[in-house]
């Protein structure tokens, strides 16, 4: 990624973008990742709506600020939301082209990540890197660390538990690729997460491992401050709206679990049905060999059943590859959301405890001590972030399930249409007057 500066963008100096604090991301500056010495685009040259907001005074938290973005930037976020849902997308990420790598120590799969963006945070308009599952896992952990108040999308399962599933089979790799693609797209769509520094590095760095190592060595101040070592603070009660969210997520996960089991059971029954069909069809062929006038009709029926069998196999494959993984993803999603809710509870608990402690001290000081204020700030930010994310999540969930279930219906319709065509085409054959042998 050495090289040519983006067109028409004046350089603002030797600092790379990564040195500049991004107000919405809330992460502090870090050392520039190796290799990238291209001059960064001018922050003031707003090329997208997002950049406009960068200029706002409130948003410009100096590097090293402990707290995450203040609640006053919530408005900006909401504004961003609206615009993101519109046509002014400025970041596109795709996962494709899985490749198997065989090394002496291990064998693994990498995926090509293609990024196209006009955002100032990216030096180049286009990037193409290769990542493996490990890297995604790292990214997710980093996001959870650095954005604890936000809902981080889930990754597909790390380990393959059930039976002898081939990690390198086409179907498994394709299913995983789709899930990883979905993962990145969800982050891309998120107005805060998409600006996350780790995300940027993930998309652009040639050598991610180098960055990872460096990241380990440097304890970011944000990282520190954000890790709540709150142990011991117990929450008295969850505010109503968060309690409602918690209850919703519990029931939601339960229902999804049931649907997952039903879907699996259906696939199982369909496969057993398929096994019988595969024995059934050929018997008509055997019979056909005995007959004269009936030979063609019987052979036709045999072929017809064969076609239906193939259609059924396609249906079960589709359901296994496209339907079940998405269901599981949402179950993981709701699990991770519940843990974010718990974190929020801790923040609130800490604040309440500190507040209580101050009240008990009955000190003369009229103003609330700074650290309690910080706690309050933290809690309010967390609440705001969480609420915003929940709303976004609800919308996305609705669209995702609408698409998923319509897809399921579609696949079943296609299956029946294939079978219908097979049986309709055989009717003229059966009705044909044959020359008696």
């Amino acid at each position, binding site marked *: 990624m050495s090289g040519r500066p983006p067109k028409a963008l004046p350089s603002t100096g030797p600092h790379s973008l990564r040195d500049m604090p991004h107000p919405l991301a809330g992460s502090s500056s870090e050392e520039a990742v190796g290799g990238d010495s291209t001059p960064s685009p001018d922050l003031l040259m707003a090329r997208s709506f997002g950049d406009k907001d960068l200029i706002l005074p409130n948003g410009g938290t100096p590097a090293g600020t402990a707290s995450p973005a203040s609640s006053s930037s919530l408005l900006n976020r909401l504004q961003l939301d609206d615009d993101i849902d519109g046509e002014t997308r400025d970041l596109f990420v795709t996962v494709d082209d899985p490749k198997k790598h065989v090394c002496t120590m291990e064998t693994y799969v990498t995926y090509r990540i293609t990024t196209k963006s006009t955002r100032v945070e990216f030096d180049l308009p286009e990037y193409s890197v290769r990542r493996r599952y490990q890297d995604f896992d790292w990214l997710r952990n980093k996001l959870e660390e650095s954005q604890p108040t936000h809902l981080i999308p889930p990754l597909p399962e790390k380990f393959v538990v059930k039976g002898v599933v081939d990690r390198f089979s086409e179907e498994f790799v394709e299913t995983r690729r789709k899930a990883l693609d979905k993962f990145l797209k969800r982050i891309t769509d998120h107005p805060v997460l998409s600006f996350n520094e780790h995300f940027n590095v993930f998309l652009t760095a040639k050598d991610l491992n180098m960055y990872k190592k460096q990241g380990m060595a440097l304890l970011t101040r944000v990282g520190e401050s954000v890790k709540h070592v709150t142990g011991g603070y117990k929450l008295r009660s969850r505010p109503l709206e968060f309690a409602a969210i918690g209850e919703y997520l519990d029931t939601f996960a339960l229902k999804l679990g049931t649907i997952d089991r039903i879907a699996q059971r259906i696939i199982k029954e369909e496969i057993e049905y398929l096994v019988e069909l595969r024995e059934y069809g050929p*018997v008509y062929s055997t019979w056909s060999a005995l007959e004269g006038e009936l030979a063609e009709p019987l052979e036709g029926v045999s072929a017809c059943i064969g076609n239906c069998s193939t259609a059924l196999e396609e249906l079960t494959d589709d359901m296994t590859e496209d339907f079940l993984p998405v269901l599981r993803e949402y179950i993981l999603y709701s699990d991770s959301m519940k843990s974010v809710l718990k974190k929020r509870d801790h923040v609130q608990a800490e604040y309440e405890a500190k507040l209580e402690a101050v009240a008990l001290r009955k000190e003369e000081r009229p103003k609330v001590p700074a650290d309690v204020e910080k706690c309050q700030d933290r809690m309010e930010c967390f609440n705001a972030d969480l609420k915003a994310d929940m709303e976004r999540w609800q919308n996305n969930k609705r669209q995702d399930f*609408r698409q998923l279930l319509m897809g399921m219906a579609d696949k079943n319709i296609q299956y029946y249409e294939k079978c219908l065509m097979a049986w309709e085409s055989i009717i003229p054959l059966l009705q044909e007057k044959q020359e008696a042998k």
Partner: protein
Amino acid sequence: MEQASPDPEKLLQPATLEPLGHPEAELESVVGEEAEGARDDGSGDGKMTENNFWLKKIEISVSEAEKRTGRNAMNMQETYTAYLIETRSVEHTDGQSVLTDSLWRRYSEFELLRNYLLVYYPHIVVPPLPEKRAEFVWHKLSADNMDPDFVERRRIGLENFLLRLASHPVLCRDRIFYLFLTQEGNWKETVNETGFQLKADSRLKALNATFRVKNPDKRFTELKHYSDELQSVISHLLRVRARVADRLYGVYKVHGNYGRVFSEWSAIEKEMGDGLQSAGHHMDVYASSIDDILEDEEHYADQLKEYLFYAEALRAVCRKHELMQYDLEMAAQDLASKKQQCEELATGTVRTFSLKGMTTKLFGQETPEQREARIKVLEEQINEGEQQLKSKNLEGREFVKNAWADIERFKEQKNRDLKEALISYAVMQISMCKKGIQVWTNAKECFSKM
């Protein structure tokens, strides 16, 4: 004088015409008539040829089934099902039908009728009865003979049996069949009085016993082989079809669970709720649709079963022919050996071993008078034997002619019926696919409103 021993082989050719003059010609014409009758269209609606005037335009139906209790031969209480057989004659002018006869019969009486027909019409492929016990059932179906669904399907099967008889050019003329439809009391006694059980060849029951036939009729051998293969393939088909039905049932029924869970899920959703709820309803519809679908398919299975049993009837005809051929060969062999003995006695040469011959050698010669006497006996026996062989040959050729005519009729009926069965099966599948498309399209629309 030397006489070439008659070649037993020559005597066995059923196809070769015996140079014996007129009697065949007469028989031939009668056989021809029968054969012609057999080539008439034997469709199941009871319409008959001129010959069967008393069965012309008759409608037969097995309209009801009823549970009864009675006492059996051992004076024990038993429960059985009785079937109401109604016969109607259709008036020419206005097509109205008038009930002429109505009586109740049970399954065992149908069996009696059929057994009688098997004995008296060995050259006919006698229509089979519906199965005695439910076989090839898949788990939802009951194997219980008293189960109403089984009784209903049996009622239809028995009606079909009677219609097959009524539309058969030869069988429809049978008096016992006529009485079966018209004479309720005493019918059993009438049948038994025919003494058909005595006439029955017990060897026919020993299905797999082999009788070495030296000169088998290739057509019958092939046909027997075909009937064996047909039985085997249809059995296999019915078994697998039952398993397929079982699995299909499972697939549909599990979808019903979606109905419940969508409903529960919709309760916690705001905008998605309605779409989910109504989609769930369609899943319930889908799950319950399989019951009717599979019930229809049972009719198809019953049609296949009929031909499974028909294959058995076909085999019986071939078997009968085999036995006739065997008897013919035995008779010819016996005749040949008697002729040989006679010749030896006449010429004084002993070519074949006989106990008489040995004892004669050992204990002294017999007198010329004794020898003459023996020759005379043998000559009588030979005469008798020749007459018997002639009539057996005649019988054999008649049998072959009649049997083959009925077999041709049967083949055409089979091809027609099975084609129809396959078409109706395809139509059933098409209907099932269309229902599936409908339900999922409805569900998809509900999902789109989520």
